């Protein structure tokens, strides 16, 4: 059973279009209903929905849109990031990242201990941006002597040093070109 089927069948195997429409403001389900000649108050079986849509991509898009609007999705939660996707920086211990919804199309990812935040239109984008911010800030701070840093930046440097370090991996050797 795929994700779509599981969610559609969660309400006893039946799902009402009225409920779906209420949850997914961005989706034009009314048009879809007209196309499918289905009354909005009519309850239909989850298997019928999947058959008639006949496109898993559409279903996944709908579910993403619905899940992003659920009250649970707007609550902040924490994930752990174990890479910064930077060649020269390693993560020593997983970085706790708090993700929260700022508005319908905006998410903020924060590394609260270090006071670093960034954001984006999706959760993934927010985390990518934060990874870039952390990598940039660590690279900048590690080059600077402590006497050039204010109290807050010294604290940021200390916190970052706990979680990340310069990579010990050697860069890839250049392949000599054949003459």
């Amino acid at each position, binding site marked *: 059973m795929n994700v779509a089927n599981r969610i559609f069948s969660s309400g006893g195997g039946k799902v009402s279009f009225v409920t779906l429409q209420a949850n997914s403001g961005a989706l034009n389900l009314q048009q879809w209903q007209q196309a499918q000649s289905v009354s909005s108050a009519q309850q239909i079986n989850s298997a019928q929905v999947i058959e008639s849509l006949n496109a898993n991509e559409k279903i996944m898009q709908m579910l993403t849109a619905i899940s992003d609007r659920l009250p649970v999705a707007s609550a902040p939660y924490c994930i752990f990031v174990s890479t910064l996707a930077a060649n020269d920086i390693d993560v020593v211990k997983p970085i706790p990242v708090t993700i929260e919804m*700022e*508005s319908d199309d*905006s998410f*903020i990812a*924060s590394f609260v201990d270090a*006071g*670093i*935040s*960034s*954001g*984006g*239109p999706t959760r993934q984008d927010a985390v*990518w*941006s934060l990874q*870039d*911010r952390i*990598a*940039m*800030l660590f690279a*900048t701070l590690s080059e*600077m002597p402590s006497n*050039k*840093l*204010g*109290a*807050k*930046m010294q604290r940021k440097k200390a916190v970052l040093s706990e979680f990340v370090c310069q990579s010990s991996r050697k860069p890839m050797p250049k392949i000599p070109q054949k003459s």
Partner: protein
Amino acid sequence: MSVFTKTHAENTAKKLKTKPKNAHYPRLSIIEVRGQTHVMQQIWCDGEFILDFGIKHASNRNNTHGWVARELNLSPNKMYSFAICTMSIDEMIAHFIEDGTITASEGGDTPSDDAV
């Protein structure tokens, strides 16, 4: 409350560079460092790197930049009022001194009541 956008973040960076009216307050300077997804705005005060925040490269100027307030340790309301010029640079520096971002030696003497 209105949304804090990229334009607001850029206004904030510009306004932080302006000279405060109060002669006792230090002037802040900003160095921009370009990264993969951000332009990092490093805020310097009397030769010390005191704070930083990131402005995304996004082409859409209406993209939200709500995280800037957090990075500058300000409430979203204050951040917005600073960007739209309701809050002055002097008030911002006073806030930085109050929360310890700028220390007394960097900020010079805080003006006393008789000096005003």
